[in-house]
């Protein structure tokens, strides 16, 4: 929007209202109260983990610092750097090519580039290890052909290494950047780019000087998501024998039996992530990334020919092939060869699907309430509570699982004894080991995923749109229902789908918090894989991928249609 006097006044007044903590729209205290309540509820495990920082833990820290911690830190930093570069190059590059260029196969790539999202990183790690390690078919074939017998005869890149972990994680995580960068490029006004062309910049310069900086918040957000997943990951690095900070957390907790120190390490990790986010915010400085014009036209697209077209195709298809086609084929091959495909998977697939669905709906509903309440009453208290609630994403799943389990157990036990004292009924634990508790844990972990998306898209609904509805007689709830939700339904869908896919893949919280006699696909995959029955794990893993595929397809469809004015 052009910076008209009134518009800037509105924005300015909003900013000032934030500073002052006033309630511009006379937002109902109900919204604030419920938001703070929800946020505190969801933030409780995070707070619980952070509280460990102040508990003394004897000499464990000293032991860790003197022995393994430096290596963990170095590995984590290298892994993050590698994956960060990987996902940015892969995600931004493919997003730009697919959005702005025309070449054969672009239509397929548009959605196919998202496919690796349905692949749990640990599953991809299994398949590549199975394929490429010393005893795997590739190296065996090489030895066969050349008559070699051991590694002393030849050199082959070690897949179980930091490099391997970087490649595998980049392959499955680049879609986060692709998704957000593509949305940003689609939203960019072509006029801005044309202005850049008329100012004498070529297409490349236009990309680096205009499009990229404009898309920077989105790229940063996507990269941040990918890096948080990287930091959280345990399965992949464990499998690849790369000891990261997260390995340290697990080892301290599981091995040394020091949950307190593990939580402290988790808190350190959290602070590190926060610092990263802050640095990005600060470096963005006062520059605003509002789009200054809303004149959209059909994106022209640079027609690529010859080697350029070939290069674009190769670059884009590589990600799809290595991140999805190859591992999925390997899974399919293993499943067909080794696993008896049986109906055991059916109830598990149903469990996984229903859990993911309920969690996605809950995350979207809670995300909407929190984002809207924050919009209505941007008070410091609301903001702080909301931030706390969305920190869960930065904490390794297993730490979150424990952080959730412990307070939940306290509440649950208090509830049980309360009911027993007052009604004489022995209820046992009502929450722990229930689906509700599991959904709660997912909320703790993934609320940030839905909230951030919803918050961002809610911010795009102009203030006057809201004011119009209010002056036309709709209250806050009516406005949310009749204006905001229809307007941001695309983002709601996206947010829900992201959570859905994440929950399908989620392991640590599911493992520790699920009810008796209740299995999901991820649990089964992990159980088989950890029993060194990789090939048998292929079948449930494949089902995870297949079930996750549907939402990913819907997601790419939603993104493709999201271009402003792209309806007609």
């Amino acid at each position: 929007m052009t910076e008209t006097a009134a518009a800037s006044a509105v924005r300015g007044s909003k900013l000032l209202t934030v500073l002052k903590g006033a309630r511009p729209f006379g937002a109902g205290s109900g919204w604030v109260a419920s938001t703070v309540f929800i946020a505190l509820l969801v933030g409780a495990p995070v707070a619980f983990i952070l509280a460990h920082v102040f508990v003394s833990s004897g000499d464990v820290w000293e032991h860790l610092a003197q022995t393994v911690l430096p290596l963990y830190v170095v590995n984590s930093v290298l892994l993050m750097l590698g994956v960060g570069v990987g996902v940015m190059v892969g995600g931004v590059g493919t997003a730009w090519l697919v959005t702005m260029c025309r070449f054969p196969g672009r239509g397929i790539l548009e959605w196919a580039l998202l496919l690796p999202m349905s692949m749990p990183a640990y599953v991809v790690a299994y398949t590549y290890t199975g394929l490429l390690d010393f005893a795997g078919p590739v190296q065996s074939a090489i030895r066969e052909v050349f008559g070699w017998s051991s590694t002393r005869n030849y050199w082959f890149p070690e897949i179980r290494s930091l490099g391997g972990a970087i490649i595998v994680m980049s392959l499955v995580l680049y879609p986060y950047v692709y998704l957000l960068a593509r949305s940003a490029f689609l939203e960019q006004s072509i006029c801005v780019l044309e202005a850049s062309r008329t100012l004498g910049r070529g297409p490349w310069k236009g990309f680096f000087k205009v499009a990229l900086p404009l898309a920077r918040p989105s790229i940063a957000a996507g990269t941040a998501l990918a890096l948080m997943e990287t930091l959280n990951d345990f399965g992949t690095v464990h499998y690849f024998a790369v000891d990261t900070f997260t390995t340290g957390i697990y080892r301290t907790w599981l091995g040394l039996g020091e949950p307190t120190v593990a939580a402290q390490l988790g808190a350190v990790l959290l602070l590190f992530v926060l610092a990263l986010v802050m640095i990005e915010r600060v470096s963005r400085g006062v520059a605003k990334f509002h789009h200054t014009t809303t004149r959209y036209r059909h994106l022209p697209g640079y027609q690529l020919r010859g080697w350029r077209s070939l290069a674009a195709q190769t670059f884009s298809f590589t990600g799809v092939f290595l991140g999805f086609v190859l591992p999925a084929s390997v899974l399919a091959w293993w499943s067909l060869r080794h696993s008896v495909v049986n109906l055991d998977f059916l109830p598990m697939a149903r469990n996984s699907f229903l859990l993911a669905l309920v969690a996605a709906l809950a995350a979207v509903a809670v995300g909407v309430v929190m984002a809207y309440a924050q919009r209505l009453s941007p008070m410091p208290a609301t903001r702080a509570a909301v931030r706390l609630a969305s920190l869960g994403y930065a904490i390794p799943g297993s730490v979150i699982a424990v952080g959730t389990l412990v307070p939940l157990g306290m509440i649950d036990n208090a509830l049980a004894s309360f009911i027993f004292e007052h009604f004489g009924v022995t209820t046992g634990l009502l929450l722990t080991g229930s689906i509700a508790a599991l959904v709660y844990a997912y909320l703790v972990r993934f609320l940030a995923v839905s909230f951030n998306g919803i918050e961002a898209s809610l911010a795009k609904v102009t203030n006057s749109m809201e004011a119009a509805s209010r002056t036309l007689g709709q209250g806050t709830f009516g406005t949310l229902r009749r204006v905001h939700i229809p307007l941001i339904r695309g983002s709601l869908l996206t947010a829900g789908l992201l959570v859905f896919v994440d929950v399908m893949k989620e392991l640590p919280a599911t493992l520790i918090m699920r009810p008796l006699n209740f299995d999901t696909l991820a649990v089964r995959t992990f159980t088989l894989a950890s029993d060194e029955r990789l090939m048998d794990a292929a079948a449930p893993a494949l089902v995870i991928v297949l079930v996750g595929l549907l939402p990913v397809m819907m997601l790419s469809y939603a993104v493709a249609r999201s271009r402003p004015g792209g309806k007609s």
Partner: protein
Amino acid sequence: MNKMFSKPQPALCGPGPHCALNPNGGCAADPLRMAPCPPGSSCLIMDQVSCAYGETRVVDNVSFAVRPGELLCLLGPSGCGKTTTLRMAAGLENPVEGRIILNGQVVGGGGVHVPPEKRSVGFLFQDYALFPHINVLANVAFGILDKTQAERRERAMEMLKQVGMENYAEAWPHQLSGGQMQRVALARALAPKPMLMLLDEPFSGLDKRLRDQIRDETLHVLKSSGVCVLMVTHDPEEAMFMADRIAIMRGGRIVQIGEPEELYRRPAASFVASFFGEVNRIPAKVKGGAVNSPFGAFPAPGFKDGDQVDLVIRPEALSLELGDHGIATVLVSHMLGRSNLIHMRVDSEQGAPIHLHARTTGPLPHIEGARVSIKLDRSQAYVFPAEDQSDPEPMPEEVQAPPPSLGSFC
């Protein structure tokens, strides 16, 4: 949020016969002197209203009333607090001081805040804020509550007919031109039959030619609906075209309020005079209760000797006559369409030469370098306290975007 609304408030009303408007046009409000509402009282009273963000007082002790059927215009440069005042009337902001009385009911201030949806106000936004996810008819019907589907439709169609958009009922907002969007937005705001219409720079998104036409149509629609209107603009010409009365604002305060002609003819401040058009400003010192100038002495009542003042003269108050005995030399003359602008230099005895502009009609006299004598219409010359030169200029014509990308949510 309903508790504020349900709190019973004594019905108060605006300046009745007992409440003389103070020179600023607002009611010298003493709440205790407010009488129970007689018929014909004001739609809206802003009673010593202030709005502040932190230390900054965006609106500072503003009082005025909008009378039934009246169109009151808040005019001022950007950042003068006029939009905030409007938003307070709508309930989109809440005053830190003072009270807002809507149809005899306190709706804002003093711990009361009736939310916008309970105020029965219509708001016409600068960017129109049409809902992009529903069609034109549904947009207009959006605010019509408590009626059957058919009645809502009927009422919405009726409104669309009034603004000449009945053929676009099924169209989508993104298919409309700026002018069409403005009309739909007007119909939508009027459809629930609000007691008060609030217009926030409603024509700034339109190009000049279309603007004149839409402005005219809007005025007729508003006047025929009989609703009271509070409108915000930075364009003095627009204000004079639309308004029954104009409140001119600056720095969060009302400088002067009155009918357009009154403001033009009898500006209360240098700022008011210059806001309606370019003026000649001659700095001077008061001497013996008067100001001396090349055009003779002007009485300066209310000033002490030695006070620094500005003699403000509208260019059209000057008429020129060729003659070697004239006091001024013509530097340049330009034809501006309906009038000519003549630049002159008057050599003054006291100090630096004075640069004056005169506006004349008729054919452009090609008289560069000629000596002219100047005749002054003294009713268009004013003595005001000297102001610093950072005086807010009338805002330049702003380039407006079409409403924000409505399609982005389709």
